């Protein structure tokens, strides 16, 4: 390794080699599955569900590359200082090179990713997708993200606003161009010159960061130095203080992520044309699941007790020596995650209707709601919509907190193994779904045996719940009163969902006890209750 370029390539490549290998393997496997299951000649349409199994990991990889090559995984995006790693500033390398190599490798990786996906889409799936401009646009988005996130800012949160504004502007321009059938060559001519501009700004940003420049435009902060400590209002309890700590540390991540992604998704309504109701439903579904998908990203940071600790997943002595029980520390995380999910959905329910209304796509959705109201009646329609929105909110929260019981163990092998298992299961999901949808025997078997499958899952969940409760009681991590309260709250939630299901699904085809099992499976318990056990084992090793 004799050059800075090779050193950067080694660092970026080594740390993220698994994803760099896993994604091409996954896309290749997906193409083989298409050839074997659907057939080599059949053309896959954009709205076909099979496309989703390529688009979801591709989108994941897109955001992952942005996070990796902008060094956003370890930085404080909302903070004022640059997120460019300060450890690199001491390298005997000119500032331009510090900015150049992450940009070159990032841009090249992004272009390869999109070119590879395009080639596979055209050759393996038979889709007619543009070749060049999506790859260049991905590289441009990354370059601007790097330039704007490496810049030091004078106000907290300004980085997110600046990056969102610039990226949305580029996205809007390109989408408008597509709508007016601008030739690909012109799009490329618009996009390519942005790469050197972004590079120039990135060099300027890294140079400022290297000199330690962190402007302060906050009048509040400057006035703050004169304040006496006693003026600040006290927290009412340790639980409130810990909730504040968790909120400041993690609470704003999910709303910020969704605020960055949502405008891009809403702009899709203007691209695809809302004449196709399938497309409208596809985009609407994508928008509705965005908080849940983004919550999976945000969840990985919530498990990290302290990014400044030697081991990010280990509990830092500062946190471990808080005079609180492990259950109380977990309660603060759960509460923070709930309010983070609520804030995210308030944002969604404010922005999404505006975008849908402006695009004119609302007519498709209103029509569907009217037909549903006619079919099932107004009260059931209202309850169904409330259930869907409530379910999405709860699912977002669950996604934020369901892996705490793994992440808080602090054992890297557990965290990595579980991540690998999830990836494998997700990879198998696509082919399995396709197989079931095409095999009448499989569908018949599933239809005949789903109660048994639900019963097995019910038994596993009940056994896991009992095991966790027994451990919590034995280790005295939760008082008996709290344990009873937790169980009572869970039972009330199950009963409420069961009653709603019984009222809504008024059919003799599904026995009520099966609805009870479904309600039991839907309300989380064992994994959440196991989080204090995980934290305690990490905190008192």
């Amino acid at each position: 390794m004799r050059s800075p370029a090779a050193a950067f390539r080694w660092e970026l490549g080594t740390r993220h080699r698994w994803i760099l290998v896993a994604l091409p393997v996954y896309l290749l496997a997906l193409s083989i599955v298409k050839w074997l299951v659907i057939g080599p000649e059949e053309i896959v349409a954009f709205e076909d569900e099979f496309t989703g199994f390529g688009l979801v990991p591709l989108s994941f990889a897109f955001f992952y590359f942005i996070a990796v090559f902008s060094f956003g995984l370890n930085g404080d995006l909302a903070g004022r200082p640059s997120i460019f790693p300060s450890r690199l500033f001491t390298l005997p390398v000119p500032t331009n090179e510090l900015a150049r190599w992450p940009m070159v490798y990032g841009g090249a990786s992004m272009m390869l990713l999109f070119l590879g996906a395009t080639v596979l889409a055209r050759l393996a799936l038979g889709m007619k997708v543009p070749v060049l401009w999506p790859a260049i646009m991905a590289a441009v988005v990354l370059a601007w993200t790097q330039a704007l996130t490496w810049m030091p800012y004078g106000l907290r949160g300004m980085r997110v606003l600046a990056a969102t504004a610039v990226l949305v502007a580029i996205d809007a321009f390109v989408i408008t161009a597509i709508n007016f059938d601008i030739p690909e060559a012109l799009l490329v001519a618009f996009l390519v010159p942005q790469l050197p501009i972004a590079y120039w700004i990135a060099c300027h940003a890294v140079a400022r960061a290297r000199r330690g420049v962190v402007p302060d435009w906050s009048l509040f902060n400057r006035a703050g130095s004169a304040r006496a400590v006693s003026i600040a209002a006290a927290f009412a309890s340790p639980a409130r203080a810990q909730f504040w700590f968790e909120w400041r540390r993690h609470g704003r991540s999910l709303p910020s992520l969704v605020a960055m992604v949502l405008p891009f998704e809403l702009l899709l309504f203007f691209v695809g044309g809302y004449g196709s109701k399938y497309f409208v439903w596809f985009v609407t579904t994508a928008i509705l699941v965005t908080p849940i998908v983004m919550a999976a990203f945000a969840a990985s940071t919530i498990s990290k007790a302290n990014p400044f600790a030697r081991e990010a997943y280990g509990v830092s002595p500062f946190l471990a020596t808080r005079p609180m029980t492990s259950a109380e520390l977990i309660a603060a995380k759960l509460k923070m995650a709930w309010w983070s999910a609520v804030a995210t959905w308030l944002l969604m329910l404010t922005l999404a209707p505006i975008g849908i209304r402006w695009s004119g796509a609302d007519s498709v959705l209103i029509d569907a709601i009217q037909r549903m109201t006619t079919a099932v009646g107004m009260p059931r329609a209202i309850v169904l919509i409330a259930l869907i929105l409530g379910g999405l909110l709860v699912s977002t929260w669950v996604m934020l907190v369901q892996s705490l019981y793994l992440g808080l163990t602090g054992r890297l092998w557990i965290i990595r193994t579980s991540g690998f298992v999830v990836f494998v299961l997700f990879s198998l999901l696509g082919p399995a779904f396709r197989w079931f949808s095409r095999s009448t025997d499989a569908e018949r078997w599933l239809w005949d045996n789903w109660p048994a499958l639900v019963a097995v899952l019910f038994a596993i969940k009940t056994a896991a719940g009992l095991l966790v409760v027994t451990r919590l009681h034995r280790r005295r991590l939760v008082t008996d009163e709290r344990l009873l309260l937790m169980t009572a709250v869970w039972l009330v939630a199950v009963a409420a969902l069961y009653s709603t299901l019984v009222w809504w699904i008024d059919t003799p085809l599904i026995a009520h006890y099966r609805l009870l099992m479904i309600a039991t499976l839907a309300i989380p318990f064992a994994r959440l209750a196991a989080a204090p056990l995980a934290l305690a084992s990490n905190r008192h090793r």
Partner: protein
Amino acid sequence: MNDPVIAIDRLTRSFGAKTALNAVSLSLPRGGVYGLVGANGAGKTTLIKHILGLLQAESGSVRIFGLDPVADPVAVLSRIGYLSEENDLPGWMRVDELIRYSRAFYPGWDDRFAEELRQSFDLDPSAQIKTLSKGQKSRAGLLVALAYRPELLVLDEPSSGLDPIVRRDILGAVIRTIADEGRTVLFSSHLLDEVEQVADHVTMIRQGTIVMSAPLADIKASHQGRSLDDIFVSRVGAQG
């Protein structure tokens, strides 16, 4: 009130093949400053982590104020002030936020004392922790460890790598703490001259085993008044 503040009985702890603590027994009565000295890797921090309940005893027992710090962390930790060697205060907090956050956990928090410490340590309340120098971070950590006048103050290599002014502040804080009757300080350090200045009882640890634990005056008397440095080298050895 005569119960020892720290009572450790035959505590053993291993990390893989390495035995970090080997049947360590230690009993520290209430009041006074106890110096814990040993070379790098001798087991000082491991011992302190057991006292705080951050490590669980593999064998033997640890009792702080008569309580098990793992089974009852709230009751134990609310009476201990701790300054970590790692200085891992959350970098995103401002100094005033750190004070506001910390005082929520301790009913005995003394606002006036905290403000007095902040001023004497010259800490800007609006400064972010991550922008502070190493010495200032140590002062901030010391402030939140002292402001509720804990019964037991545990300092793990508090002055390692710090300039003489910050070290003086830390020693001053130790002296102020012991000025409060009945309070106990456990002070681990490489800097034996510092330990010699403030400790009235010294425990030497070598490769996970306590090789000497006695009042400083007795140690010096039995070594013909030699300095603690000389005694340490002769008992613990340069290799630790």
